[in-house]
């Protein structure tokens, strides 16, 4: 006899774990399966875990702001569960969005007003008072160091930024997923590791269960795809699912750099998270008084779409494998080096290379599928970490409503956010949507 669960969640990262948690709270007997050895060890581990509210759509802003409340109240969210590894910490540094041509910051400001996000407008002097190491010249457009004009002297100055005091980052993204796993287990959820899904079994348009690499079959009427960069491979295993998605997902290679802070600047204690569209970088403090330097994927940078299995096996060659590339190291560090002229850039690249599970319009797919009982929380595109606890709640409610008979495609589920009280049309994240051209088509979401 095969084992049977009410729901199987594929992936125990920061998206999969909260879905298991919320379904377990609703009384579902859940099983989470993950090919890695522990929770959050896949692409979650490579996340910068930034918590910010600036998104290109009002719904995006609202969703992220709702997420803030979970991070600010982490122990409560976990129902005070004990995790032997300790709890992840929310580093509430505050978040600066530099006003630049690289961001539609006026839209963000309108969305902040509409949603009620707490923020302040800072002029350049105010920014410099808080971050004295900055050079606030405008360096736009974003270029690469291989381009001789990269080194041109700037003329104009920037025009300040928007400061959001509740923003920040989570110090250990892997641990945060582990915390949620422990919280889910306390509600009856089961987790299975080192288990790779090789088949999604279905009959008569309904999910029947999954089969693992060792041949084990487990039965369930509900499967949720939270496989991160492997999401498209899981969708392809499920009958008609991949074909039924108008918005597809694929894995995008992404590099994040660590560069030591200028000697006289205590970035780890005094620093902020900062999004700087003028140089296409976002930064936050990292252990060791380092700057963590992420890229906002400017058009001039290469985009490498890769096979996740090949990538994690170290294959693909220079610029496509899981090793930092010197060119991108220089691009990101030099861009930040213009903004922070005292930043020392070591000769040896240091950082993280991992994958985004990226959708066609960089907005996730939180939806049912064309196969009965098969759901998706995919295409998180490097920008959904902060939303993960909200996604857990929303997906559990969506799944529960659909399993009780709701036709979400015809009558999209309306999700009420617990803290902000806003209603959200979950149809916004539909797999059937047309590409959303309001999106930034970048990690900014």
């Amino acid at each position, binding site marked *: 006899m095969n084992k049977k669960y009410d729901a199987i969640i594929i992936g125990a990262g920061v998206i999969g774990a909260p879905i298991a948690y919320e379904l377990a709270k609703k009384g579902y007997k859940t099983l989470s399966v993950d090919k890695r050895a522990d929770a959050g060890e896949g692409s979650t581990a490579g996340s910068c875990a930034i918590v910010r509210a600036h998104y290109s759509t009002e719904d995006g802003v609202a969703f992220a702001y709702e997420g803030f409340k979970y991070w600010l109240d982490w122990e409560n969210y976990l129902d005070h569960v004990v995790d032997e590894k300790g709890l992840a910490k929310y580093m509430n540094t505050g978040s600066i969005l530099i006003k630049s041509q690289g961001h539609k910051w006026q839209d963000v400001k309108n969305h902040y007003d509409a949603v009620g996000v707490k923020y302040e407008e800072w002029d350049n002097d105010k920014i410099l008072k808080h971050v004295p190491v900055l050079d606030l010249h405008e360096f736009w457009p974003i270029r690469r160091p291989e381009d001789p004009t990269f*080194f041109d002297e700037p003329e104009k100055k920037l025009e300040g930024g928007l400061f959001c005091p509740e923003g920040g980052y989570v110090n250990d993204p892997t641990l945060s997923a582990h915390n949620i796993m422990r919280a889910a287990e306390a509600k009856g959820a089961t987790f299975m590791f080192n288990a790779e899904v090789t088949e999604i079994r279905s009959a008569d348009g309904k999910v029947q269960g999954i089969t693992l690499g060792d041949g084990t079959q487990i039965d369930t009427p509900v499967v949720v795809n939270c496989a991160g960069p492997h999401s498209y491979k899981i969708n392809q295993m499920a009958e008609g699912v991949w074909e039924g998605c108008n918005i597809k997902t694929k894995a995008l290679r992404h590099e994040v750099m660590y560069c030591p802070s200028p000697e006289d600047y205590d970035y780890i204690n005094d620093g902020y998270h900062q999004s700087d569209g003028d140089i296409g970088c976002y930064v936050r403090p990292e252990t060791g008084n380092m700057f963590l330097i992420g890229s906002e994927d400017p058009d001039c940078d290469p985009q490498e779409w890769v096979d996740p299995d090949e990538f994690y096996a170290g294959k693909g060659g220079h610029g496509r*494998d899981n090793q*930092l590339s010197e060119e991108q*190291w220089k691009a990101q560090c*030099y861009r930040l080096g213009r903004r*922070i002229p*005292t930043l*020392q850039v070591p000769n040896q690249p240091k950082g993280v290379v991992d994958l985004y599970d990226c959708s066609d319009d960089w907005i996730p797919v939180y939806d049912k599928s064309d196969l009965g009982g098969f759901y998706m929380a995919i295409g998180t595109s490097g920008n959904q970490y902060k939303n993960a606890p909200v996604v857990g709640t929303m997906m559990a409610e969506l799944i529960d409503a659909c399993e009780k008979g709701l036709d979400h495609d015809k009558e999209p589920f309306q999700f009420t956010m617990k803290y902000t009280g806003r209603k959200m049309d979950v149809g916004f994240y539909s797999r059937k949507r047309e590409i959303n051209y309001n999106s930034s088509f970048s990690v900014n979401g």
Partner: protein
Amino acid sequence: MKIYVCVKHVPDSAATITVKGETEIEEGITFLMNPYDEHAVTEARRLKEIFPESEIIVVCFSKPGAEGTLRSALAMGADRGILVTTGHRHDPIMTARVLKTAISQDGQPDLILTGRESIDSEGMQTMFRLAHLFNIPAATNVVQIETAGNDVLVSCEKEAGAREMLKLAMPCVLAAGKGLNNPRYPTFPDIVKARKKEINIIDFEKLDIPEPESRVELVCLAPAIEKRTPKEITGSTTSIAEQIVSILKDEARVI
């Protein structure tokens, strides 16, 4: 003071090295300045701060791609560079002859700095061969340098905790150890300045160096597969801390 700093263009220690054929590695990886040489460049810059009239010249014998490593050294404070290019691998005997010739053709050294070893071949002999060719003294694993008239007083680390104080007459060859300084990495303005600094590129063949009577030949490269044996450290926080200190002290001998 004319300070020549010899730097080597080596694979990034974090790169995955793949052996290609018998004696080559896949070169589609990041190459950068040998980390020990970063200490040598940083020290040259420190000396220039004391003796502002000094000139720092970086010298490298490598494939043409090494220009990036020279630019890094220039950004770290060197004034100009000399790159002797070759398409082949050479042993330390030839490398020392090339460096000697390139330096002698350029000027009279007061000080020659190198790293104490290269992280790729770890031969630890080029600096001694170079000193021999110049007929000048050498010291290695140098962790402190002081000038005293025409001499330098250096402190060399022999093993963990033991140091030797040496006095050498200038010119001399000093090979930098890790404890010499914290490398001073370039800022963006330094990198901009370095773009305009001069690099004299010389073809190895044009130096017309006679073939040495003997040489070291690389026969075969094989990947070293290290076996990892993880060990769990358990107990109270104090006991765990004590065990870690004892491992670092007695097994790893790093403190």
